[in-house]
């Protein structure tokens, strides 16, 4: 794992993160925003694996697993909220639920 490979992997991780952020900004659907969040979280996960490999240090992979589990927990809460919002607000569009302004 040479320095330039590391830079390449890091750029890929940053790319994934950027795609995730763009996904949240572009689409109004709550389900789609949650999916975009997952993609965003996978970016740093890849980064940790690459950095761990570069430094030949198992901690990277440890962090990867930690990131995955907590991402799953977050999505679980997200889906629960998605169901509850669909029942009360009657739609899964995130722009509708913007009652509080100013």
């Amino acid at each position, binding site marked *: 794992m040479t320095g330039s490979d590391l830079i390449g992997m890091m750029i890929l991780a940053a790319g994934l993160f950027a795609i995730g952020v763009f996904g949240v900004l572009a689409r109004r659907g709550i389900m789609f925003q949650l999916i975009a969040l997952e993609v965003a979280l996978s970016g740093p996960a890849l*980064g940790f694996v690459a950095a761990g490999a*570069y430094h030949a240090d198992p901690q990277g992979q440890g*962090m990867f697993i930690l990131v995955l589990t907590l991402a799953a927990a977050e999505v679980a809460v997200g889906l629960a*909220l998605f169901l*509850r919002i669909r029942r009360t607000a009657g739609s899964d569009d995130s722009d509708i639920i913007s009652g*509080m302004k100013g």
Partner: protein
Amino acid sequence: MTAAQFAALSPLVVLAIAAVAAMMLVPLARIEAAQAAAGAGLALAAGLVLLRVGAPAAPLGALFTDDGLARFGIAYACLASLGALIFLRTGVPAKEAPALLVLVALGAATLAGAGHAATLFLGIEIVSLSLIALFAFRLSRQGLEAAYKFLVMSGLASSALLLGVALIYAETGALDFVGWTGHGALAALGTALLLAGLAFKFSLAPFHMWTPDAFEASPASAAALAGVVSKAAVAIVLLRLFLTAHLPEPVWSSGLAALGAASVLVGNLLALRQPQLPRMLGYSTIAHSGYIALILASGAPRAAEAVLFYLGVYAPAMLGALCVSAALGRAPTLYDLHGLIKRRPLEAIALSLSLLSLAGLPAAGGFIGKLYLLHVLVDRGLWLLLAIVVAGASLGFFYYARFFTAPFLGQSHDEAEPLPRVDQGLLALCVILIVLFGVAPVVLIDVVRLALP
């Protein structure tokens, strides 16, 4: 596991057990039992920490450091959460609130002691997820909206934070704060993202958008947790990074200074004509995070002492104000406050004193807090920041004045039911603490001196 290591970790263990117990008790017994269990857990954890004050630091490896700062953080989290528990309204269908509250305390405690990226991320996620649930606690339309927004934004912020840590890890090859010394491009970019992630939790501008909605829609105790407990934990993490990690200086200090200045101006400006008390308090927490960020950005030798003192003075004021806001019903406005002194003298005086302290007027703790802030800025000769702080404080003075004078003016309108005894106890405690720190700040200064190396 030597006895010292176990004693160091015992508060976290106790909190975890209390959380599980509170969750188990919900289906079995009434909500009050769960509240009692949570309260007992918090009190026990706080007691355990206070016992170990002054004891030598137990070696716990990289993940968790057991120094004075961590103990101060844990004790602060437990006591503040206990305060928030007192005015937690339990008349709502979902009964898991006490459990979630203890989980937030647990997350804050882990953050306080975090010395490694893993515990940092774990702590942040525990706090965030519990807060999401607490915001949606009332299951009202606005509650769900606030929770969902917080979820999406904290997801983004956490991924930014993780990417930053990954970049620093790639540069320095270490994940514990002590090892983070590097001046390369990756480290600089990593620090920037780390700072962004933490700034979101710390509700600094421009990452502050979630705070006003959270304060308006969620129950007052959830707002207290977000405004006081989680903010203090993140502040202690920033302080530890400032003390131990050697991240690239320009990004760190001027980044924090810019964010701090922005949040001071935005927080005070947006709160200028807010009619609602909780939303105004939301914006004022943004401003106060700005003040703390400026203290950290100055990097003066007494910055650490200033941060802890400011947090110490900030807690009773914010808890007092939020407790009164909870007592006055869903979202009290300036109109509801008129003539409060006649109907409920204790609430009126508590609210006024808390707002006086937040505004930084004399005879209240906030005055000495502002003193530290001015001293730190003047010590490093940061005249521009000083000007911004004075401008922010002046703006802030306007909206605080509107709210802390309202109870004395005009006629009172409705007859709300009297406050339960324990809430009145909490308010009295907050009033005493505010006046004590205002008149005899030496008490808090010695406590803070104890916590710092």
